[in-house]
C-alpha cells in the first residue's frame, strides 16, 4: 500500500534517475551479477562485462520501464501488460531473482543518493519495486 506522499517520492526519485538511466541500470545489473553469480545464467546471449554496450543498453531499458511504472503506479497491471507477458512466456525467470535485482537497485540508489536515501525513501522504493515485480511475475502460472 502506497501513501500519496510515497507515490510522489517514488516519481520524484525515478525522474532524477532517468537522465542517468544507463549508469544506474548497468550498475544495478553488475552488482547483481557480481553478488549473485547464478543470475548470469539468464544473460548468455549478451556481453555483460563491466562497461559493455549491452550492459548499458539493457540497464537503460530497465530503468526506463521502472520510471514508466512510477508514473503509472495506479495502473501497473495495464502499463506493464506487455512486459508481464514477456517475462512469463519468454524469459521465464525464476521469481526469486526479482528480489535479488530489486536489492541491487536499492544498493545502487543508496550509493548514488547517500543520506538522501532516507529510510522513508528506501521503504517507498522497496514497496514500489515489490509491486512492480509482482506484476511482472503475475502471469507465471
Amino acid at each position, binding site marked *: 500500500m502506497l501513501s500519496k506522499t510515497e507515490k510522489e517520492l517514488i516519481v520524484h526519485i525515478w525522474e532524477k534517475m532517468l537522465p542517468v538511466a544507463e549508469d544506474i541500470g548497468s*550498475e544495478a545489473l553488475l552488482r547483481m551479477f*557480481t553478488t549473485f553469480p547464478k543470475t548470469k545464467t539468464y544473460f548468455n546471449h549478451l556481453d555483460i562485462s563491466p562497461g559493455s554496450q549491452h550492459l548499458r543498453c539493457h540497464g537503460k531499458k530497465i530503468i526506463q520501464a521502472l520510471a514508466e511504472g512510477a508514473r503509472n503506479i495506479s495502473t501497473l497491471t495495464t502499463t506493464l501488460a506487455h512486459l508481464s507477458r514477456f517475462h512469463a512466456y519468454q524469459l521465464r525467470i525464476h521469481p526469486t531473482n526479482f528480489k535479488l535485482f530489486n536489492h541491487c537497485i*536499492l*544498493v545502487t540508489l*543508496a*550509493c548514488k543518493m*547517500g543520506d538522501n536515501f532516507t*529510510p522513508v525513501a528506501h*521503504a517507498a522504493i522497496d514497496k514500489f519495486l515489490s509491486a512492480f515485480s509482482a506484476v511482472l511475475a503475475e502471469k507465471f502460472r
Partner: protein
Amino acid sequence: VVWTEQERAFIQEIFGKLNYEEAGPKALSRVLIVYPWTQRYFGSFGNLCNSEAIIKNPKVAAHGKVVLRGLDRAMKNMDDIKNTYKELSVLHSEKLHVDPDNFKLLADCLTIVIATSMGTSFTPEKQAAWQKFLAVVVSALCRQYY
C-alpha cells in the same frame, strides 16, 4: 567457508570505515521502518509509531550498537563464525523467538547503510564480499533453530 585474501581485505576495509556508534542504530532503525513487522520483537522499546520516533528512540540506538558489536566479533573470528555465534543462535531461537527470515532483512538494511556512507567506493566486488560475510553470519545465527 573459504575466504579469499581479497574478500578478507574488503571486509576488513568496510569494518575499518564503519562508525559502529552510527551504523548500528541506522541499520536497526531502517529495518524497523522499511519492514515494520520486525517491530514485533521490540515491544518493550517504547515509541515506534512513526519513522521519526524510531530514529530518535534511544533503546533502538542502544540495541543497534549491540548488534554491530556482535558483527565485529564475527569479523574477528571469520574462520569460525559458526561456533562464535552458537550461543547467540540459541538466544535468538529459544529466548527471543525471532523468525530467522528477519535476519536477512537486517543484513540488507546494514548493506544499504554502508552503501549510503561509502558511495561509489562500495564497488560491486566489495558488495559481493560483504554480502557473503553477512550470509555466513545469518546462517550461523539460524544454525541452532530446530
